[in-house]
């Protein structure tokens, strides 16, 4: 049968599910704290001592809510860093592609797509950067940048059927893979945002 402390720690871990790394760390620290408090209890290490230690510690949900407030800023910073790296890598990949694929034909779309996709992504990134304190604006900027980059990626699908050499195809594949990772990161961030928003509401 689980003790009071074990139940408390399980609850804390559930409430901190938005950041598994933080949950591991905080649960370990809190366990150490609570066990020490029980050992220091003048009335002995009993289930009642566990209950008193947990009561003095405070509600797990309130602690998780405090962590959520801090985590949301950290997650935003990570997302912007990822976005900035993605934009830079996209730019480099596009410049290299133009260098390799520019066949001089007036009908060639590649340089046009690359140029405007990057500008759109850059504008999106800048909007996100300046709106970093407002999640709705940041999200819109992030989505704009991603959408522009994805359009560029889809339009360059001709690369794969054109029999282009591997050193041309590989950077494009790498870029699309990176965008998929970025999208997954964005989806995870949205999920955590939802969890932290719920915790904020619960903690205030």
């Amino acid at each position: 049968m689980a003790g009071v402390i074990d139940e408390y720690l399980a609850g804390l871990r559930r409430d901190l599910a938005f950041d598994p790394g933080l949950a591991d760390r905080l649960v370990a620290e809190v366990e150490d704290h609570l066990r020490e408090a029980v050992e220091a209890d003048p009335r002995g290490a009993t289930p009642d001592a566990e209950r008193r230690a947990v009561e003095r510690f405070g509600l797990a949900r309130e602690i998780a809510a405090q962590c959520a407030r801090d985590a949301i800023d950290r997650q935003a910073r990570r997302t912007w860093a990822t976005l900035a790296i993605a934009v830079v890598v996209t730019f480099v990949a596009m410049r290299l592609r133009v260098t390799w694929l520019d066949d001089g034909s007036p009908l060639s779309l590649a340089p046009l797509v690359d140029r405007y996709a990057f500008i759109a992504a850059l504008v999106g990134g800048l909007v996100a950067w300046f709106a970093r304190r407002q999640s709705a604006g940041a999200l819109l900027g992030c989505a704009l940048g991603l959408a522009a980059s994805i359009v560029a990626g889809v339009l360059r699908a001709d690369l794969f059927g054109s029999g282009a050499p591997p050193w041309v195809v590989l950077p494009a594949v790498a870029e699309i893979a990176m965008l998929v990772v970025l999208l997954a990161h964005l989806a995870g961030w949205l999920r955590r945002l939802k969890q932290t928003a719920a915790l904020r509401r619960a903690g205030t």
Partner: protein
Amino acid sequence: MLKGHLDAIVLAALEAGPAHGYAIIETIRSRSGETFDLPEGTVYPALHRLEQAGLLSSAWTTPPGGRRRRVYSLTRAGGAALAQRRKAWDRFSHAVEALLGRKRAWPA
């Protein structure tokens, strides 16, 4: 009111040397003459936040025959931040005392 100064209080509690969460809370309680008997759990998010900000560093340690625990230390930036918050607090508390009529306006 205490909530707004929690970071400074935690930094001050670590000024004397590295300590783990439980000891930090005990230090806060005893140095405040039991006045700051805050819910103990509120200190851990603050510790984590201060570490993320580079004001504290931490490491897991296992004392001989003891439990594994995370010990926090003030970084150089943390020391500077504490000095800065102390100055701000001095200005604030002198101003409040002057307003409440127990002291003359500060600086004189």
